[in-house]
């Protein structure tokens, strides 16, 4: 790989910022994040190739190919691509070429989308929400803004860190980074916190309960109260597990949503649930 570094830290920072702001701005079914990739690299090409229009065209066309990953943890890929483009431009015979850049990019985007979505959308964001929503539901506006602060702060922090890291590591090390224990440790740790909180969240947020009462000759049989004595929050747990089970069986979320809607509506209308 080339020794010469043409790009300054500022150039890379600018690319990271462009990626952060615009990764999804014109998200679409056809090419997803390709436009963001090219936008972010435009100034980089300009600096690397100057007046060599042909090379710029080649670069733009290379980067307009389909690309999609998770924008935060996956920012390591655009960061790495900047490093690769720089290596290719400064030393075209050094082993890095256009085809290789596309290959590496395409090979990494899937795994990183998987890891990124699990850690961010599956774990971090729900944890931020579950804590701050409780405040907001009590009428604290600060709760809503606390969510913004956490989500935006971590989003920016992770994106910037991963982008710069990707640039520094270059292609070989990103592979090693993914295979190493770091990712596994992070997912396990957040998984424990997430599952632990999730159990409590069912009790806190799913407010449904059985309210069926049967009038007997001498007394009233209160099903809800009896159920609550045996296992508190039994109905919320069962409903969550039902919805989970349907999704595991491959039902679409929209279908599950409609089933829950019907159970709730009918159950409420006839006085079983409330």
């Amino acid at each position: 790989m080339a020794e010469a570094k043409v790009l300054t830290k500022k150039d890379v920072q600018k690319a990271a910022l462009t990626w952060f702001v615009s990764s999804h701005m014109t998200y679409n079914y056809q090419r997803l994040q390709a436009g963001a990739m090219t936008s972010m690299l435009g100034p980089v090409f300009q600096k690397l190739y100057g007046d060599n229009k042909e090379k710029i065209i080649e670069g733009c066309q290379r980067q307009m190919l389909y690309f999609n990953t998770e924008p935060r943890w996956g920012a390591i890929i655009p960061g790495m691509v900047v490093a690769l483009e720089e290596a290719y431009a400064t030393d075209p015979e050094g082993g890095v070429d256009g085809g290789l850049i596309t290959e590496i990019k395409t090979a990494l985007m899937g795994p990183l989308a998987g890891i990124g979505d699990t850690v961010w959308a599956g774990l971090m964001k729900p944890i931020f929400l579950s804590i701050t929503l409780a405040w907001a539901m009590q009428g604290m506006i600060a709760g809503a803004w606390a969510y913004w602060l956490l989500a935006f702060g971590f989003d920016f922090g992770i994106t910037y860190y991963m982008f710069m890291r990707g640039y520094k590591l270059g292609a070989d090390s990103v592979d090693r980074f993914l295979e190493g224990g770091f990712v596994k440790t992070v997912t396990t740790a957040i998984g424990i916190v997430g599952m632990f909180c999730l159990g409590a969240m069912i009790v806190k947020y799913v407010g449904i309960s059985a309210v069926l009462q049967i009038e007997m000759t001498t007394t009233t049989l209160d099903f809800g109260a009896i159920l609550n004595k045996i296992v508190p929050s039994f109905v919320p747990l069962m409903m969550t597990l039902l919805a989970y089970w349907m999704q595991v069986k491959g039902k679409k979320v929209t279908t599950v949503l409609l089933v829950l809607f019907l159970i709730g509506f009918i159950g409420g209308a006839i006085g079983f649930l409330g």
Partner: protein
Amino acid sequence: MVQALLMALLALLNGIQGPCHWYMFREPVMAGFWVGLIYGDPVQGTIIGATINVSYLGWISAGGANASDLYWAGLLGTFVAIKGGMSLDTAVAFAVPIGLLGNYVHVAYMTLASIWPTRMDVLAAKGDWKGIRTLQFLGGPALVLLLRAVPVFLIALYGGDLIQQFIDFLPTWAMNGLAATGKLLPALGMSMLLKFMYKKELLPFFILGFAIAAYTGLTDLLMFACVGGCLAFILIKLGFGRDAEKGVE
């Protein structure tokens, strides 16, 4: 009129894709705050938005596929709830069909936005990266303006009274049904999270969290996060994740 225009502006900010907009305008709790602010009751708006938000806790858009539209569920859900003077549970139930409707808008957006890369290809062939960047920054938002801001403007302008009439028209049993639905729907958000996080070796933590909350009545999630964090730290130090990995793979 001014309020409807503000709603349209909010719908634009709510629909633009990117971290500068996702957390400040899209998340139902924040969308609720802004809608509340426009209609003079930010506290109530925040409460409604947060309540709707719970059903969308496990919301994820992988590769642009949506379950139910988070954008409009929060924005229009809060609007409808405030205009209809609804209870919180009913508001959650109403947010669902709105979210499903919004889904079509999202699909339309993702499909229409697919014309932009084709235009970008033309620019790329000329090496005009500045043009591509401009299109990247403005192409999507232009469609949001058309597909989200304009409809929301019309709904805000003409929808309020209709909603009120509709609510008055509903019989008691239907209101009971909607209220129960509202209390039940957060189970969906929980189940989506469960599907995401589920691993056999993590199941004890789920049961532990549920049992503590259900039997003690303690539900402060900051406390659970702290305890969970310590559990995770200790267990990983003891080698928790590594053994499990060998067992699975």
